[in-house]
């Protein structure tokens, strides 16, 4: 006890009474010295000689003092503060160097911080629900259909099966998207609604802010109409009035009782602002509806079970469902219920891209580090004398390394501060750019986690780029350095090798990044050349969604769309108009098992899962979908005439090969349900409805007249800029039904663009990062070559004096630069071959080892390196031989 108290008081004393402690040390050693001298004098040596002898014997007063100081332990702290002060002074004195280094590091750290903020918000943060790791989405996987179309939503009968057969969930909820036309403040508003199982809220662990969530019985058919409001809608539409709970609302023309308001921040599904309970009608649960896959299903795994155990359970459920429904082609399509953790589900599309960008910015930071390290090495050579003096004065090697590292860490921390500023702006831009494609990105901020990350990478980079120069400088006492000159010492060649290694590394890293960017750019260009089966230019689109309550009869729906399309087609500049249940590239839409009357394939293969689209006669012309044979759907196809369909060329080719599909028959549903046969009247080009990257399923178009759809999108082909027509078209819609809002008003070009936005962003960011890498590498090469040339100016002078031409000198310097570049390019190509494979999932129509890209990138990099070493080379040729020679 006593001992610790004593120890601590000693430490404090050495910290705060430093001058006193120092004086005591000096006194103590002087006393010793005097005793030593006295002893010698007593032996008859002259005082003068005795003094010298004693000093020699003692062996370096300052070294002993320093060792004693080290024993004080607080020395570390003291030295550290001293190093910080000294380091700051050094940085201030070399303001130019400091600014360049801090900016370089700031860019690197800033880019990393910004990207990490996004990664943190999107990928790392848990979802805002109770125990989110136990939440899973359930999909019906039809492996037999093949990628990318094999993942299906769940049908109502399947959902009931899941509910009753599973042994691993505390609850299962079905969600069906819908939209609500809500009259708020006089104008019709379309609000994203969700029709959900009452159990959803318990599964998510969410409670109403006030009021209540749904009761189990509200999920049964025939119950009173009730809704929940989101916090945002409640504030916006109802002025945050608590009295809204218990009041009645008119939605889609029907009356609903508001039972509660959800808390701010509650979101599920994304964008839903109003919830209604999902109740299955008897019709929904018939065998005929088994193929109507339209429900999103969410489940919570029991707390004591793992995901793996739940997956095992799903195998049993799959087996049971397959056995109980032999007439549905489950076995044929290798059906299985699959579970995806909710977070993976939300971010799976963007995960790869985000991790690749993270890797890319990390490489940029490495290059920035290499640049600063080589700057420091240059400075270290200039400071060799200073270090030699310090060592001679008793500084130990670890002490010098510590001091150098303190300086570089100071530098990187300043870089970190600059980086935070850059990240602050960068993150704003990033959120604005990605809001529509990255889930949860709006929550990205420079949070505590991010600040810790920035702090750590700043420290890490400081140590990383400081270590090489520090170790190098403190290598050994260089006696030549003390003597001055020292420009030609061999130690300089070690440092030169290090600098060259750094340049090679920079070039190699840049090459990897540039290659990645090049491959993405090429994929993007390839993708823009893809023929999606339709002509997106000059097409205006907008969506309409008629409430079933108000438009309960098919004739009403039909009349509405006919009137709107009639009026729109009379507008000036309109060439064709039509409506479709779902536009290309705007979602997966509805699909279903279709039975095809054919002899060409075995009977069990004649019931494919097809994409179904309901269209009005003008749609094909408006969207520019070419006719292959037969005719388009037209006015002849009415609810009075026999059922017809138009199919795409893939369906025709697959099921009626070597035959004309026109005149053949197919119907909805599996073999047994008795949907009427429809006659194929035409074959059209295949349209890539799902993604531009791949073919969709086989497609069947049904005439709207025989098959009313409440939600349709208008497609209007115009002769001039389609944007100009938007207002006029909306007016025509309002003229038919003033309560009906039109939404998602976009040109078809914008729809296509929208489907590529994630890809475009990844390409853009990677291009920016690799551009930054290229710039940094160029600056690095320039700096090193300039230094190399200036170090050798006397050599150049001698060469010139001995008759070398300007061209020879130029060639010498540029040659050196090119040599380094080529080594870097070689290493970079090997690295790129190893790394670009991780890009595979982001590439389209390009191999990760695409030779033209590799060659082009290598050439660009070499050209840049040439220019960067040419500038200092030209300066070297201007050296006057006489001046250079006299310089030594």
């Amino acid at each position: 006890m006593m001992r610790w108290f004593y120890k601590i008081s000693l430490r404090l004393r050495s910290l705060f009474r430093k001058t006193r402690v120092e004086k005591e040390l000096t006194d103590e050693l002087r006393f010793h010295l005097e005793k030593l001298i006295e002893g010698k004098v007593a032996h008859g040596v002259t005082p003068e000689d005795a003094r010298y002898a004693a000093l020699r014997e003692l062996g370096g007063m300052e070294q002993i003092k320093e060792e004693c100081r080290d024993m004080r332990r607080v020395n570390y702290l003291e030295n550290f503060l001293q190093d910080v002060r000294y380091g700051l002074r050094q940085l201030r004195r070399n303001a130019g160097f400091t600014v360049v280094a801090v900016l370089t590091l700031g860019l690197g750290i800033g880019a990393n911080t910004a990207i990490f903020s996004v990664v943190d918000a999107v990928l790392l943060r848990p979802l805002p629900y109770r125990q989110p790791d136990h939440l899973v989405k359930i999909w019906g996987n039809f492996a037999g259909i093949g990628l990318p179309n094999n993942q299906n939503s769940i049908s109502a009968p399947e959902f009931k099966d899941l509910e009753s057969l599973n042994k691993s969930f505390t609850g299962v909820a079905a969600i069906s998207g819908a939209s609500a036309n809500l009259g708020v403040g006089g104008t019709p508003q379309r609000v994203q609604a969700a029709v959900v199982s009452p159990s959803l809220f318990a599964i998510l662990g969410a409670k109403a802010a006030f009021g209540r969530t749904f009761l189990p019985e509200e999920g049964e058919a025939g119950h009173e109409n009730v809704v929940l409001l989101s916090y945002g809608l409640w504030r916006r539409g109802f002025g945050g009035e608590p009295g809204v709970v218990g009041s009645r609302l008119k939605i889609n023309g029907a009356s609903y009782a508001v039972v509660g308001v959800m808390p701010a921040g509650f979101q599920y599904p994304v964008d839903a602002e109003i919830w209604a309970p999902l109740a299955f009608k008897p019709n929904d649960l018939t065998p005929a509806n088994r193929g109507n896959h339209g429900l999103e299903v969410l489940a919570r795994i029991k707390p004591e079970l793992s995901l793996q155990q739940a997956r095992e359970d799903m195998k049993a459920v799959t087996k049971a469902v397959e056995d109980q429904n032999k007439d549905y082609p489950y076995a044929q399509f290798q059906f299985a219920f699959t579970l995806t953790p909710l977070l993976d589900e939300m971010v799976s599309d963007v995960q790869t891209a985000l991790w690749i960008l993270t890797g890319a910015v990390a490489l940029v930071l490495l290059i920035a580090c290499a640049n600063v390290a080589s700057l420091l090495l240059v400075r270290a050579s200039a400071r060799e004398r200073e270090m030699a003096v310090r060592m001679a004065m008793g500084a130990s090697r670890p002490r010098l390394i510590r001091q150098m590292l303190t300086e570089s860490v100071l530098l990187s921390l300043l870089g970190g501060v600059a980086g935070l500023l850059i990240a602050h702006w960068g993150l704003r831009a990033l959120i604005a750019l990605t809001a529509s494609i990255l889930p949860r990105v709006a929550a990205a901020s420079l949070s505590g986690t991010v600040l810790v990350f920035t702090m750590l990478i700043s420290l890490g980079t400081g140590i990383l780029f400081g270590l090489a120069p520090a170790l190098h400088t403190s290598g050994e006492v260089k006696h030549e350095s003390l003597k001055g000159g020292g420009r030609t010492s061999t130690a300089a060649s070690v440092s030169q090798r290090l600098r060259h290694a750094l340049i090679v590394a920079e070039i190699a890293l840049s090459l990897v990044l540039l290659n990645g960017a090049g491959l993405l750019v090429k994929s993007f260009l390839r993708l823009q050349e893809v023929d999606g089966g339709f002509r997106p230019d000059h097409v205006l689109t907008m969506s309409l969604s008629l409430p079933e309550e108000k438009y309960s009869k098919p004739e009403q729906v039909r009349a509405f769309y006919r009137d709107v399309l009639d009026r729109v087609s009379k507008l000036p500049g309109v060439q064709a108009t039509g409506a479709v249940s779902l536009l290309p590239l705007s979602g997966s839409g509805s699909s279903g098992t279709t039975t095809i009357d054919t002899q060409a394939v075995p009977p069990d293969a004649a019931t494919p899962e097809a994409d179904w689209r309901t269209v009005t006669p003008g749609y094909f012309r408006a969207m520019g979908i070419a006719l292959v044979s037969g005719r388009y759907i037209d006015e002849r196809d009415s609810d009075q005439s026999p059922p017809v369909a138009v199919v795409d060329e893939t369906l025709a080719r697959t099921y009626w090969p070597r035959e004309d599909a026109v005149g053949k028959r197919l119907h909805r549903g599996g073999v047994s349900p008795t949907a009427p046969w429809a006659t194929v009247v035409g074959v059209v080009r295949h349209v890539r409805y799902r993604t531009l990257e791949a073919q969709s399923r086989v497609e069947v178009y049904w005439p709207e007249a025989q098959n009313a759809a409440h939600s349709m999108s208008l497609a209007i082909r115009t002769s001039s800029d389609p944007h100009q027509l938007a207002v006029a078209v909306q007016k025509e819609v309002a003229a038919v039904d003033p309560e009906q809002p039109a939404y998602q008003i976009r040109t078809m070009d914008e729809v296509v663009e929208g489907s590529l936005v994630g890809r475009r962003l990844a390409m853009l960011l990677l291009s920016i990062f690799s551009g930054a890498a290229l710039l940094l590498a160029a600056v690095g090469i320039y700096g090193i070559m300039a230094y190399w040339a200036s170090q050798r100016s006397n050599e150049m002078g001698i060469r010139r004096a001995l008759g070398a031409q300007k061209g020879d000198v130029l060639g010498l310097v540029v040659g050196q630069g090119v040599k380094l570049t080529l080594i870097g390019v070689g290493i970079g190509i090997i690295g790129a071959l190893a790394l670009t494979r991780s890009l595979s999932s982001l590439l389209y129509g390009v191999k990760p080892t695409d030779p033209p890209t590799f060659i082009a990138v290598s050439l660009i990099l070499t050209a840049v390196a040439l220019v960067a070493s040419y500038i200092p080379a030209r300066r070297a040729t201007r050296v006057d031989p006489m001046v250079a020679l006299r310089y030594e």
Partner: protein
Amino acid sequence: MSKPTDLVQGTLDLLILKTIALEPMHGWGIAQRIRQVSGEVLQVNQGSLYPALHRLEQSGWIRAKWGESDHNRRAKYYALTPAGRKYLEQERTNWQRLSAAIGLVLETP
């Protein structure tokens, strides 16, 4: 100048502790005493003596006090703390065990 006898660090600590066990002494005195008592065999290098003293002080085994030396000169006197006395006993036992063991090894034919 080579050190006459290389003292293992722990050994020097032991010698210092033993030397000041009787009475407080200053650095010079400690060096002299060790040399005399060892019959001029052990020459303590000043370069190691003072760091060792400071280390022992920082560890709380000894404590320093300024006092009057001969001719009214101020000198820093080191004395054992109670903890240091225990530590000395412990180290002495260790040393005896160790040297006995080494002796055994060396004398075994």
